[in-house]
């Protein structure tokens, strides 16, 4: 199992950050992602694998300020 924004979901082998965001239907183009407290930059989403038992935080950045 992995935890995404506090929700437990199934772990999938060889799933990248990009795949996970798609599975979670996080469609915003600008997301800040941390895995177990470590930042994953957007340029690395397609190559970074999600480890089992990890805690993932994904924050949508929405325009306006």
């Amino acid at each position, binding site marked *: 199992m992995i935890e995404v924004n506090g929700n437990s979901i199934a772990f999938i082998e060889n799933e990248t950050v990009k795949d996970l965001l798609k599975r979670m239907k996080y469609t*915003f*183009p*600008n*997301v*800040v992602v*941390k895995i177990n*407290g470590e*930042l994953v*930059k*957007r340029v690395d989403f397609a190559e970074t694998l999600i480890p089992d038992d990890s805690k993932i*935080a994904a*924050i*949508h*950045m*929405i*325009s*306006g*300020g």
Partner: protein
Amino acid sequence: MNTEKAEKIRIKLQDSSVGIAGAGGLGSNIAVSLARAGIGRLVIVDFDSVEESNLNRQCYFRDQIDMIKVEALKKNISRIDESIKVEIFNHRLTKDTMDRPFHNVDVIVEALDSAETKTTFIEEIMQKLPDVPLVGCSGVAGYGQSGRIGTKKLGNLYMVYDEKAKDSDEDVLMAPRVILMANWQANIVLEILLGEDK
């Protein structure tokens, strides 16, 4: 009024510094609130000038239209408290050098407008200045729905966040919600600098 507590706070904040990226709806109001709270030094970066359309939510005045924002803001802060040191940078924050103005501050505040710039800034600050607390904001557009706003803390990153808000391109930006979230950010800054209020 607890004068002993107030004096402790005054001394601590006078010796504190905060960097603010952006001087629009969020940044201008954050700067003014922190100035009123008594922060000793502010570092503010923005490339823009004041436009008439800004006056519905940003802390500028009609006679400041066309002025460079950071200069107008510095003037407004000095009208509140002349003793506050305000360092201003009138330039656009660009990728790979976004951290530069903020190397000597206690807390950094992200007060930018576009989602793309916000994300780039947060990524870069978290990578280059991982030990400096960073207070960001996402989801200011619209009105009402105050209860959807919350603080999300991820290590040294504090996000004032409404994930259900629409993008500002598809919605409106109005003073009450923008200033509410700006002050939410400023309030987090105080908590970081002073510790939890018990």
